[in-house]
């Protein structure tokens, strides 16, 4: 699988913006904030987080609203919302590209939850928030896992392709903060408690791998194909900071 790619601050009018592509998905995030909230929505103690997911084609429907409902509480935990009372932070996530299988058939029949897109949406939103210089408590990353029941036994696939998701018995999305706290847990399909434990373990290793040095040997083996996104984000942001703060 191709390594993740990102472009930062490419939209001139938004406070922060990022283009993130990984696993066939390309997401553009535009972040504006903190701006004044509308009178009827404002919260006197904390900032609102307004997440808007737009599909690659057409207007958003119930599937996009569900994605927003999954992402919004996660981002609320990350943003230091108590620093900005009566404000709103707008996060707009536009799907630019999706792998072939993702929208073609499901869109025609009925809207259904597309778990595979959540990690890309979260990572794009993170990069957008970081370039908009919105204070965050911590950073986070997510991963998608699929369990397949074959004759050889159950296998866990990290970052599955849309076809693999179709064939899987269950699909899971787990997000972790840099401090190894569970942030997102969404599952679809049937699975046992033991399988869930394995999934949790694998996802934690994928998301938080390389956070501490010295544990590398123990953590090898889980999909070398999946790049550690937190390290990737750090390197692109560091390059951007070095470029824009060249005078330091």
């Amino acid at each position, binding site marked *: 699988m191709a390594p993740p790619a990102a472009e930062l601050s490419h939209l001139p009018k938004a406070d922060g913006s990022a283009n993130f592509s990984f696993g066939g998905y390309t997401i553009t995030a535009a972040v504006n904030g903190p701006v004044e909230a509308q009178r009827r929505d404002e919260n006197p103690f904390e900032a609102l987080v307004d997440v808007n997911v737009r599909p690659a084609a057409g207007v958003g429907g119930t599937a996009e609203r569900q994605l927003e409902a999954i992402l919004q509480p996660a981002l609320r935990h990350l943003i230091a919302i108590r*620093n900005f009372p009566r404000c709103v932070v707008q996060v707009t996530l536009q799907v630019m590209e999706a792998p072939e299988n993702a929208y073609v058939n499901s869109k025609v029949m009925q809207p259904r939850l597309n778990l595979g897109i959540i990690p890309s949406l979260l990572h794009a939103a993170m990069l957008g928030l970081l370039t908009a210089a919105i204070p965050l408590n911590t950073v986070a990353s997510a991963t998608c896992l699929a369990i397949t029941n074959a004759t050889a036994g159950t296998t866990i696939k990290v970052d599955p392709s849309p076809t693999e998701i179709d064939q899987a018995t269950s699909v899971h999305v787990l997000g972790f903060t840099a401090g190894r706290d569970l942030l997102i847990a969404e599952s679809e399909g049937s699975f046992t408690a033991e399988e869930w434990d394995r999934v949790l373990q694998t996802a934690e290793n994928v998301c938080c791998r390389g956070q501490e040095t010295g544990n590398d040997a123990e953590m090898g083996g889980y999909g070398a194909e999946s790049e550690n996104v937190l390290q990737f984000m750090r390197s692109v942001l560091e390059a951007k900071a070095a470029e824009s703060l060249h005078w330091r």
Partner: protein
Amino acid sequence: MSSETIFVLPGDRIDASLIPSHEKKPLRLGPGLRHVPPSDLVPTLAGQLVTDRQKNAIRVETANGRYIPRVGELVIGTVNKSAQEVYFVSLSDYTAPALLPQLSFESATKKTRPILLPGALVYARVTLANKHMDAELECVSASTGKADGLGPLVGGMLFTISLGMARLLMMPKKAQQGRLVVLDELADAGVQFETATGRNGRLWVDSDSTKAIIAVGRAVQETDEKSLGVDEQRRLVKRLIKELS
């Protein structure tokens, strides 16, 4: 200026050796850092960690984003409307306006206060920046009663620039430290103009000829957007001078 450039992400651990310690001065935290009691310092922005050991201060430097008012910073605001005692001044788009008391101008009294119409520009200092209250501004130094260059900006044009560029323009030695020569080059080429920079990403330019105002403003904006180097800035200025004459 410290030469060490450490990049941090929100929630990173800051190495204890990077936190300055001073016998007498208290530790000052700049933007982008959060104090978690009892003794943890956690960055909240992605940027370069800057340690100033002389001032016993530490901060995270970023160049993008929206302006958040902080006490003591010089800003250029646009008057939105006037109320009984205060002007409502907008510092950035879509944010709550800041308050500028009508009497906080040099030698202003109840009878002689400057009348500012909606759209007028003011160069002001932030005196109050509290998360639960609207920011407050002043155009006069509270201790001396002198304006010190603050006050209404008459004529000229306002240009929007990034926060990093605004910071660069406000540096005393921007040519040596910041490699920003575009304004000096324009002045050397014989263009006469006057500028004021607000920390909120606003650049005000005034000159006798409108052409010169636009040329200066556009030159700074282009330098900002394309992050031009010294040579590219010189080339840009040469091209603009040719177009001006």
